[in-house]
């Protein structure tokens, strides 16, 4: 870190001015980043007439949660007008098993690839890693046919399978890089004491895996919850996840455009991941950097 305070040779007025300018610039940038969130929240709390009369940045004169209620219970997704709630639960039903399965498999893979290395373990890891970078467009057509043949096209089960399969490379990467830094002696000592593969995993490895489990769960949850491509390609109608439903609500061309409902739906779709980010931001960043840059 280099900073003005430590190294600044300017004292007094110039220093104060520079600091003031620095904060001003940072505040202006925060306004830019917060602006869409502000617009989403205020618009969702306005009535339609107020939206038409007022401006983008005006606060709601009368705060009303009607749009939220409407979005949750009545908004039309395609021809179905029972709100976004069904699709919210679709996403929940899809995300929870997919996150859990991919994380458990990733942990086992990472452990097996680092602590009980076998010939070719590195090659297998490299081959799994490759899956993180494949543009999913290249697997869309075969996947839709495979899901069809398996009889799980247009179902939550199908989406769970897809997310587990393509999430595995990331979770394996996380756990592998984490376990590489854990001393092998720990495992060797336990092996000499007669502990087996799964005993060591359960008793020694898992209890010290807390931080990386959190990273993996957060990463997988945001990826799966936010996914649109797979949802749009492999689901339709009632089985669609929430992002697909949101897009249907917003891009519907019939009837009066209800901007407040659009914004409320968008907020409802974004809330779970925003919440995760606010509650566990540190781990979220770690997951982002670990997932994108080879650790």
């Amino acid at each position: 870190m280099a900073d003005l305070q430590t190294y600044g040779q300017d004292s007094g007025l110039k220093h104060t001015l520079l600091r003031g300018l620095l904060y001003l610039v940072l505040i202006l940038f925060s306004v830019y980043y917060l602006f869409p969130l502000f617009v989403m929240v205020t618009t969702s709390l306005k009535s339609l007439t107020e939206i038409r009369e007022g401006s983008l940045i005006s606060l709601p004169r009368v705060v009303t949660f009607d749009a939220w209620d409407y979005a949750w219970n009545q908004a039309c997704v395609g021809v179905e007008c029972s709100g976004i709630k069904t699709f919210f639960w679709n996403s929940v039903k899809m995300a929870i098993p997919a996150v859990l399965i991919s994380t458990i498999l990733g942990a086992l893979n990472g452990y097996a690839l680092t602590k009980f290395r076998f010939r070719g373990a590195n090659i297998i890891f490299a081959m799994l890693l490759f899956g993180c970078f494949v543009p999913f467009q290249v697997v869309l057509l075969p996947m839709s046919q495979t899901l069809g043949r398996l009889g799980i096209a247009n179902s939550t089960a199908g989406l769970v399978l897809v997310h587990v399969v393509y999430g595995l490379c990331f979770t394996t990467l996380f756990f592998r890089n984490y376990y590489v830094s854990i001393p092998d002696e720990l495992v060797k000592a336990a092996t000499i004491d007669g502990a087996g593969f799964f005993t060591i995993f359960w008793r020694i490895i898992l209890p010290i895996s807390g931080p990386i489990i959190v990273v993996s769960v957060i990463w997988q949850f945001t990826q799966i919850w936010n996914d649109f491509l797979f949802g749009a390609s492999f689901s339709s109608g009632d089985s669609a996840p929430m992002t697909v439903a949101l897009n249907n609500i917003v891009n519907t061309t019939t009837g009066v455009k209800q901007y407040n409902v659009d914004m409320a739906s968008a907020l409802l779709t974004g809330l779970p991941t925003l919440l995760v980010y606010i509650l566990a931001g540190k781990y979220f960043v770690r997951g982002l950097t670990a997932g994108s840059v080879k650790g």
Partner: protein
Amino acid sequence: MGASSSTESNLMASLQRNLSKIVVAPSFAASLFFVYGFIIWTAWMAFSKSRMMPVYDWAGLRQYERLWQMERWHVAIENLLIFGGLFIVICLVLGCLLAVLLDQRIRAEGVLRTVFLYPMALSFIVTGTVWKWILNPGLGLEKMMHDLGWASFKFDWLVNSDFAIYTVVIAAVWQASGFVMAMFLAALRGVDQDIIRAAYMDGASLPRIYFGIIIPSIRPVFLSAIVVLAHLAVKSFDLVIALTGGGPGYSSDLPATFMYTMAFQRNQLGVSAASAMMMLATVMAIIVPYLYSELRGGKKNG
């Protein structure tokens, strides 16, 4: 005693070695089928006569020829160059700038970092929805400026086929620049303090310290960020769908939306597969050299 227990432990050891193979086997098999198998499958479709239904009769390069004859594909490629170029450059500049600013012992650094990074937690569909509303010429920014008294203000990029792709850049930069900032901030914190102190003792000014020493020393992060952003740009799909739907017409199409449209709306499976293979080739051209150098570098350090 020694002999029997050593055979026993040998047996245990070999069982355990096998156990680790057995544990990895399902994931490996899944990746063989769902990643490598599917790539071959798609490659095969791109060489077939598939249109509405997949048929596996060999057609040579016909689908690629059709692809490259399509005006729409050229628009998508051109858009990818515009979008990718601007997206990467602006994200790098903005991310680097924000990181340097945040690196000055800022009072509320934690809060600001949270503010700059939260868009990354949102789905591109959510981001697209909001920006679509903000950029809506009749109701959003344009109307706001009119209300503020700037009557001649015009901002109709969203519905202007020459500029629609730039609105995608605006929203994408908003979403991803905070992430670049986080990468740079982490790197800045890792720069050797002694070098900076020495440069300062020599009388170098702060901007010179940054431009001459700190930023060059975090060069690898630039490379990583470029790779990540380029990868994101090639895969960009959701944001375009939510923001412009590829329109007006197909003026803001990207290869990802092109591929999807051909596959699921136009019943052009062969062309769609060919475009997917082009995308794969692009990503590989970026990722493979990068991974190769990273893995080799890792070996040297380890």
